């Protein structure tokens, strides 16, 4: 795995990493099983972000080597064949990310929070691997008999993916929001992808456990809802995107949950395809969106200076529509298939248990609504609303990604290999419809992204031909006649939800008009954390230490000790 590069010359380093990413993509295509898709996705993400970084990096010598080392870690983790390789890759991936976040602003707390939760997840994964080693007596990834490692490891990976209820200490948005745009791209897109990959790998090697599947479905559904809600009310450019990452990870988790409950073989296969589609849709679109956040100056959505460009706008709209789950992009295919699989399961089971999938499905539908709202807000205020026109190479890159997303939507047939169909008598030849079946032969629903795209394009041109181009005259904006002194800001854009859901968001009015929103979960966890801190502070008297970071290390040591004891016993 010759991914190690010369890291002291910034641009050359990025270019080399771009080339090796292409090699990685090729490797993924040739593998052929489900893991190959993950490689393809990661390779594409790294390719795009490396090219973007060539134009973007103005941060100093440290960003480039850390960026590349982190990619190295992820690659090792993805291609690992033994537990130890995986853990090594995992750590190599996390530590440079920690450094990037810490060095970006010289702020300590986001980096510490990131490290703390990262280590927590590593502990759980480590413990799970140890258990797996004891039952299967080998270091390699092989089929296992019990499902306990799966449970422990899943929770470990879930923390890394930032899932509810851990999401709301906001470690993910704080961490991802405080790093430069290209690093955020690889963090959000691929680090969480490695976590999903880990769960999928363990899941395919362990026996079935439906209860865990239902729990995951529920947790995933609520993550979607809350992630999207917090994305909508967020004021921080990168924070909004980080919450959106949480939401998409929740969707992947729900799909994993559907697979685990294993209603029928067909639905389970469908669920696997859903996981891959969502991974594709999310990672690539998120990379593009983070690049958009890299082209604007400033971090608060209400006070941005933006550069407008028509190509950039179209690219931005395409990316946003994919993240909102709209056709004919791949995001729409992903959303459609997830909802179909959940409701198919409800139909098959036809018992009280199916109410879990129904509730999850409804909550996901609400979450998708918020996701589109958040994306509208994001794109409007970073690309569309006001600004000076200009060109830049960065804009060209993410608009390319936008078109890639559109094309991927049409190519999504490749991901659903067993579910292709056609109705030639009605004008759609074989091979162009993706159907959802719940047992062989019984079709639940169908979709055809390629045809949607073609039809919309054809009809638009037809309309243009029939009605003709309009005569245009440019004037000022109509603001009831007076000069616009004030602007309807992004903060105001989401105010309706802040006020309508005030019980959920704990909106308060401070002073004249300031409002803050905090989460209930954060309050609860903060309360627990404070209690623990005061307890440990009392305990500190007898340890003569006064720095908090030592306590984290103590916790880690204690945990490792306990697991070793368990193994020995």
């Amino acid at each position: 795995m010759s991914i190690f590069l010369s890291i002291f010359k910034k641009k050359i380093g990025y270019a080399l990493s771009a080339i090796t990413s292409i090699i990685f993509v090729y490797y993924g295509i040739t593998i052929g099983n489900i893991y190959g898709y993950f490689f393809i996705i990661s390779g594409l993400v790294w390719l795009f972000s490396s090219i973007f970084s060539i134009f973007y990096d103005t941060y100093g010598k440290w960003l480039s080597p850390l960026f590349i080392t982190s990619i190295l870690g992820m690659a090792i983790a993805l291609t690992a064949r033994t537990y130890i390789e995986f853990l090594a890759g995992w750590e190599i991936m996390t530590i440079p990310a920690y450094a990037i976040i810490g060095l970006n602003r010289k702020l300590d707390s986001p980096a510490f929070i990131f490290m703390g939760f990262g280590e927590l997840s590593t502990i759980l994964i480590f413990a799970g691997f140890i258990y797996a080693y004891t039952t299967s007596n080998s270091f390699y990834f092989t089929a296992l008999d019990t499902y306990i490692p799966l449970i422990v490891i899943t929770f470990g990976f879930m923390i890394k993916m930032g899932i509810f209820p851990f999401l709301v200490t906001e470690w993910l948005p704080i961490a991802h929001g405080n790093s430069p745009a290209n690093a955020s791209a690889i963090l959000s897109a691929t680090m969480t992808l490695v976590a999903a990959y880990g769960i999928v790998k363990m899941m395919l090697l362990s026996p079935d456990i439906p209860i865990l599947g239902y729990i995951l479905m529920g947790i995933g559904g609520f993550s979607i809802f809350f992630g999207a809600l917090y994305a909508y009310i967020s004021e921080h450019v990168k924070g909004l995107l980080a919450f959106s990452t949480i939401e998409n990870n929740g969707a992947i988790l729900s799909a994993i949950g559907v697979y685990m409950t294993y209603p029928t073989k067909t639905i389970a296969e469908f669920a696997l395809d859903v996981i891959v589609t969502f991974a594709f849709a999310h990672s690539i679109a998120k990379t593009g969106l983070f690049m958009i956040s890299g082209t604007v100056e400033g971090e608060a959505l209400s006070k941005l200076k933006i550069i407008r460009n028509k190509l950039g706008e179209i690219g931005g709209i395409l990316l946003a529509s994919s993240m909102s789950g709209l056709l004919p992009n791949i995001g729409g295919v992903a959303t459609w298939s997830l909802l179909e699989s959940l409701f198919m399961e409800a139909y098959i089971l036809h018992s009280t248990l199916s109410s879990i999938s129904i509730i999850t499905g409804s909550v996901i539908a609400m979450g998708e609504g918020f996701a589109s709202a958040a994306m509208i807000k994001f794109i409007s205020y970073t690309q569309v609303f006001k600004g000076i026109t200009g060109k830049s190479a960065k804009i060209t890159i993410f608009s390319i990604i936008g078109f890639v997303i559109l094309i991927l939507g049409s190519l999504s047939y490749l991901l659903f290999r067993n579910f292709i169909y056609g109705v030639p008598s009605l004008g759609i030849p074989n091979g162009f419809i993706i159907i959802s079946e719940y047992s062989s032969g019984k079709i639940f629903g169908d979709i055809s992204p390629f045809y949607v795209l073609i039809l919309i394009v054809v009809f638009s041109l037809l309309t243009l031909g029939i009605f003709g181009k309009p005569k245009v005259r440019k004037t000022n904006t109509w603001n009831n006649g007076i000069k616009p002194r004030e602007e309807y800001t992004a903060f105001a854009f989401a105010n309706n939800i802040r006020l309508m859901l005030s019980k959920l968001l704990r909106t308060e009015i401070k002073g004249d008009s300031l409002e803050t929103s905090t989460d209930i979960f954060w309050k609860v966890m903060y309360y627990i954390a404070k209690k623990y801190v005061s307890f440990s502070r009392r305990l500190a008297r007898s340890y003569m230490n006064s720095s908090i970071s030592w306590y984290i290390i103590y916790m880690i040591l204690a945990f490792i000790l306990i697991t070793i004891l368990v193994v020995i016993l």
Partner: protein
Amino acid sequence: MISVFLETIIQAIGVILVSPLYSGILDKWKANVASRKGQSIFQPYFDIFKLLKKETTVSSNASSIFIYTPYVVFSTYIVISLVIPVVYPEPILLTPTVDFLGGALLFSLAGFLKIIEAMESGSNFVALGSARATSFSFLGESTLITVFFAVALITGTNNPYIEHEFAQIPQYYLALDHILATVAFFMLWLFETGKLPVESSGLAELGMIDDALIYEYSGKPLALLKWGGYMKQYLLGSVLLNVFLLPWGMQLGVLGAMEDIGIMFIKWLFLLFIALVIDTSLAKLRLFKVQDFLAVAFVLSITSLLLSVIQNA
């Protein structure tokens, strides 16, 4: 093959040409209840034709995306009109493009594009209205999706044409979950087409929700957006009628397709009458109460979903 092709054309053209008529009829009846003689029932057509002849003024903030996206929105509605049983009760050409859920996603696509292109103008009033529209869209979209699934869970498929046939069976029609889903969908229809008690399209621009999205448009794009709005009203209302409320009476065959336009007309008069009574009896809800209205619709549709799987084992 030819007959399917003709039926397709009749359905698409029927939807495009006939949809403004229903809005005109409703406005005329509203004027009559208000003791006025009122405008002609063809008034929406006259409005559209006049707008096609006017020039388009755009704000200096907008680019050509602002001008050309209404064409894309209009074409999305045409695509939707091919996949739902709005005129013809059997699948026609290009119907399997999307199923019901895909249709709901296409409606969301049209709404999404409308909001983004409206924000292009850079006007504050438009931003105001868009903010309101997006803050209710989460409940609106989710209700649309869950209501479609409510029917899907009974029939075992998401194909709208099979659901249309299924709804004609009496014991299914009177089942509690079907009634709840119908009520939920009716409330959603009131919201999506901008009727009272959710929105009043009067002269007070600070109260507008949907009107804001067309506020900065003029000329040909405005005509297309208005026409798209009429088509959306027709499509959603036809789904309500054909799958939920009055699924009977649709004919087959090419001649039947033309008769179907007439049969839909009669069914629509019934729906318009209900809309008229509600419109002239209630006042506009306060903005935040709209969320309660939509939340009730959403909860009804979820209840209908739960009932359909639990009681029907």
